[in-house]
């Protein structure tokens, strides 16, 4: 998974809303890979037939630093843009998603059916953004949720065709005992055209990184 992530980073080295969204644009495909400080690693691919929904799937690995528990989940998912506010110089969105898949882990034998659901609320201008996301993966054997808050500031207003730069503060809570306490991270995000890359470190000194490519 890490190799895949690194490969994707190289592929999109020319690094895009300020907020990662499960739907980029109508008739667009989104490929997203995230390395979450050793606690989670995820790869997602979605296709959006329209601007307000996308379908696809992903793979996520959870690795608890609390009890050494590990889960590996393959899933299919439907993302829906429940509402969008197009303001003069800003945009706000509410996304919801849900799906199902299969899971394996080191605390149980065989494969389990897993369901997933989530919600994201975001607001962005060309200088600031804020987003809150809650993402749940659940089966009979585990319930892993990741709550993420991101606040971003751009040092300058980018325009289409230019490179956008964002300084991002991220706070994460893992209610499913994957990680104790609140994990914070400082990130640098760059994007250009349909590609972006971001990387930073957490308060524990671990690497947090993500790459996304839209086409």
């Amino acid at each position, binding site marked *: 998974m890490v190799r895949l992530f690194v490969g994707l980073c190289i592929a999109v080295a020319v690094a895009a*809303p300020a907020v990662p969204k499960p739907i980029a*644009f109508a*008739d667009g495909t989104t490929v997203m890979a995230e390395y979450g400080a050793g606690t989670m690693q995820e790869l997602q691919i979605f296709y959006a037939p329209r*601007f307000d929904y996308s379908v696809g799937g992903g793979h996520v690995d959870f690795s608890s630093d609390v009890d050494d528990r590990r889960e590996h989940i393959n899933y299919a998912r439907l993302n829906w843009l429940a509402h969008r506010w*197009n303001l*003069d110089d800003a*945009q706000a969105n509410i996304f919801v998603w849900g799906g199902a898949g299969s899971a394996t882990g080191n605390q149980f034998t065989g494969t389990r059916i897993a369901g997933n659901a989530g919600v994201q609320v975001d607001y962005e201008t060309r200088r600031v953004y804020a987003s809150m996301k809650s993402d749940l993966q659940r089966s009979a054997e585990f319930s892993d949720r990741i709550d993420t808050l991101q606040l971003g500031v751009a040092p300058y207003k*980018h325009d289409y065709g230019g490179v956008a730069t964002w300084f991002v503060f991220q706070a994460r809570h893992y209610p499913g005992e994957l990680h104790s306490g609140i994990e914070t991270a400082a990130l640098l995000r760059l994007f*250009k055209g349909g590609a972006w890359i971001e990387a930073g470190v957490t308060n524990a000194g671990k690497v947090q990184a993500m790459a996304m490519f*839209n086409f």
Partner: protein
Amino acid sequence: MKRFQVLLAVTLFTVASSSMAATIEMTVNGLVCAFCAQGIEKKLKRFPATAEVVVSLEHRLVAVSLKDGQDISDADLRKALTDAGYTVKAISRSETPMADVRERLKQAQP
């Protein structure tokens, strides 16, 4: 009679040409990111009449230049932008070449 027919043809052609806008400019709400621009550009380039698309986040502007003798109706443009997830606030048509639009946007950069 033949002269009259030629004159009529020339007049009709002139009137038709003058009613064709070279460039259509749209003020759009919700334009805050490169993905927005990318999606809009992709959508508008699907019109056979589209020659070129310019998107300026700074000016909330989407400009489309048309191929000679072709047109896209306001209704079709509004639908395309709405289907892309954005809100069209205004549409204006002019004979301004796209190069001039680009230059104007460049000059108006803060």
